[in-house]
């Protein structure tokens, strides 16, 4: 079953086309990364799914049309917006309690305390939201999106301004939710996070869908991308035949750019020919970031 269906979604601001006929579907329980540079249309698309943006086309959440079955669609959805948002009149606990009520959820005190604990906000329960730091406000927004245990959770750069340790714990929590069946759609500029967490990648650029693939396919489809090999030799001894391939040198360690994997044998033969003793060798396969950049260059 598809939990999120986007069909021919377009959005125009005056003469600027922010989204152009975007279509994709997400399976229930999937963990999907939505990638694109700033201004690619990610937030516009998320706003359309959330019901805070007018658009043309069709969007369904858990089978419910976000226009004609707005209430049911919204009940299935939790969204962490990109911009920091807070109600200055409420404290942390009240924010989550009122947020629960807005989704018709009552008597969920235990769940509220659990998400406050998982978001490291327990000691701030009675603190007014306006007194929280930027990172705390962002964690509160994640908690707000989770109060009604939505089937689909959309995270629009949820870790911006959040420190490393709490970020790791946040992702552990999100992974747990995903394992319990919640579908996650994530945008982040931390591509290592996306690479670690997501099973599927959807990439948009200039309002258009560029590609949608499983993460493995996304990366393997780009094996022609250059591989970087790091070689440390004794006394820095190196073959002149390899000079054109060197991209960097730090002390006795050389970084070489291989256009294909066959070149590795050539490198080893050259070093063997001059009897260079190899102390360390690391092969860096293209990662998500390399693939992402290569797509942008096309």
């Amino acid at each position: 079953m598809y939990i999120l269906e986007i069909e021919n979604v377009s959005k125009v601001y005056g003469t600027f086309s922010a989204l152009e006929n975007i279509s994709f579907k997400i399976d229930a329980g999937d963990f999907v990364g939505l990638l694109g540079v700033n201004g690619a249309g990610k937030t516009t698309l998320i706003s359309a799914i959330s019901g805070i943006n007018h658009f043309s086309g069709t969007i369904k959440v858990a089978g419910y049309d976000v226009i004609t079955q707005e209430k049911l669609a919204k009940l299935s959805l939790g969204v962490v917006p990109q911009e920091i948002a807070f109600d200055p009149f409420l404290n942390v606990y009240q924010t989550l309690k009122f947020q629960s009520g807005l989704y018709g959820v009552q008597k969920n005190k235990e769940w509220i305390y659990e998400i406050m604990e998982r978001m490291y906000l327990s000691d701030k329960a009675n603190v007014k939201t306006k007194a929280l730091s930027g990172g705390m406000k962002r964690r509160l927004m994640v908690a707000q999106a989770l109060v009604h245990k939505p089937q689909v959770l959309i995270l629009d750069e949820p870790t911006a301004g959040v420190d490393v340790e709490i970020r790791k714990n946040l992702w552990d929590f999100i992974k747990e939710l995903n394992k319990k069946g919640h579908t996650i759609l994530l945008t982040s500029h931390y591509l290592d996070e996306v690479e670690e967490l997501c099973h599927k990648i959807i990439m948009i650029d200039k309002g258009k869908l560029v590609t949608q693939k499983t993460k493995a396919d996304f990366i393997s489809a780009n094996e022609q991308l250059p591989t970087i090999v790091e070689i440390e030799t004794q006394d820095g001894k190196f073959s002149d035949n390899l000079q054109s391939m060197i991209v960097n040198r730090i002390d006795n360690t050389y970084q070489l750019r291989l256009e294909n994997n066959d070149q590795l044998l050539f490198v080893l033969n050259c070093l063997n020919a001059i009897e260079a003793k190899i102390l360390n060798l690391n092969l860096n396969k293209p990662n998500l970031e390399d693939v992402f950049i290569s797509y942008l260059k096309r």
Partner: protein
Amino acid sequence: MSPFFVLIRKETYRFLTVPVQTIFGPMVTAFLYQLIFGSQFQHAQGSNVGFEYNTFLVPGLVMLQVLSNSFANSSSSIIQSKYTGNLVFILMAPLTAIELYGAYLISSIIRGILSGMAVFICIAWFGNLTWPHSWATVCYFLIFGSAITGGLGVIAGILSTKFDHLAASQTFVFTPLVYLAGVFYNVDNIKIPSLQIIAKLDPFLYVVDGFRHGLIHSFNSDVVFSIWFVGLFAVLINFIGYLLMRSGVNMKH
């Protein structure tokens, strides 16, 4: 409790957390008006309001605060939510436009009436008041009067994209209309006919006069006309407000 009632509760809680601004402030303002104007005009020639001036002034000042506070509630809540970004959490919640609109409106009416009651307690003893002439009329004009300004507050909040816009609508449109609506004087006493006609075009005049009639049995305007006019005007304003809320103008992109 349904999401609709939760939003009403949230909006009501919001103004109750700042009682100095929303309850005690209006009490002090009304007390000062009553003290200064009452003492100055109680025995002045030409006040000609048909009652002791202090008695005449009490319902006017109560309604002034009812109207001002219900306007302030919805307008400030919406513009503040836009600024803090919190509006997205309201818009993303499973509430229809009519529920959203209704919640803002009802909480504005609640604030208007609570402020009015607080002001009444504070200044009633200045006047020579007895049991209200008509409780039904008093309640009608309290509810429909604050519904008009609560609705206008929603409209102002939606249309304003800056605090400046809201301040402008309040300073140049709303406040003059409310202050000139016979709060402090009887519009029939205006000597210049053209000005009197203009004064009688002020819709808040009928709210103030209707409420005054219910409270002290005064006859500045035709009560039946006031009831119809205020009721229909409230429906019209709130229908426009609802259409704006549904369209999402300045709220959705």
